[in-house]
């Protein structure tokens, strides 16, 4: 029982680190994409405003929310393993 609690606690801490890293990466990729888009030309706005607005759109977008799967997928995998190993 104490082992299960330990798994949940350490798992949550570990996955939170992964979450932070992945979200930083995703933001970085999005910013790079916006920069390249502006550099390619054809945008009327200033560079900084264009990137700032793009990042605001990203903050409310679906991709940022999908990063929460970092928590969901391991939990589901563990639940499936527990079921298959012990209850079949």
């Amino acid at each position: 029982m104490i082992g299960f609690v330990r798994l949940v606690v350490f798992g949550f801490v570990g996955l939170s680190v992964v979450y932070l890293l992945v979200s930083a990466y995703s933001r970085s990729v999005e910013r790079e994409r916006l920069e390249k888009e502006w550099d390619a030309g054809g945008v009327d706005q200033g560079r900084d405003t264009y990137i700032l607005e793009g990042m605001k759109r990203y903050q409310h977008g679906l991709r940022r929310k999908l990063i929460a799967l970092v928590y969901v997928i391991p939990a589901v995998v563990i639940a499936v393993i527990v079921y298959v190993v012990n209850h079949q």
Partner: protein
Amino acid sequence: MWGALKWTVGLLLLVIVGLFLHYTLPQRDVVRITNTYNRLTTVGENAIFYATPDVGTAESGTTRDIRFIEAVRPNGKVIVYRNEDTGWIWPPFFKYDSSNLQAKASDMKSTAEAPKWVAITKYGWRIAWLSIYPNAISLRPVEGPDVSFFPWLNITIIVVLVLLVLIIRRMWLQFWERMVDPAVKSVGQTLDDLDASADTARLNARTRWGRFRAWVGSLFR
């Protein structure tokens, strides 16, 4: 000299990772169970190959009562499995039904004259001189001794692991490109590099193989 050293270290790492996966990933043996019992077992220097002491099957640090399953392979050689809970951290089988598994194994006991073949899913190795045994995870009856399994699960796990490594590499390179490089390199140098890589890209794009390599390279950039 440096090249040889790099190859040696790389090969060594590959062997270690391979052995680690071979120990940890589940495999299925087709066997005939001959006996099931538990025996007080002293776990000492080889403790790394047994369950951690806190999972419930182990009462004290060095001596514990462990369930064993004895079996015979189709080729007549014997194999002995231990049957321990795995606990909640590693290896990640999260097994806590050792008692039930032992009951099932006892139920499937058979003789050479009237064999009942079962597929035992296990991880680990049987090494006699270290007194270590593979841990049985689950078992089910099979038709005969010649049943073979395609390791779908293990292939999936290895593919996922490779993808994770590639993702980590990609993230690291992105971090390097966006955070470290701009801080280190002067603007002029960066432009020079861009020019040079554009030239090589143009050169490479002439052949199909070069384009393929450029595409593979772009995955890692």
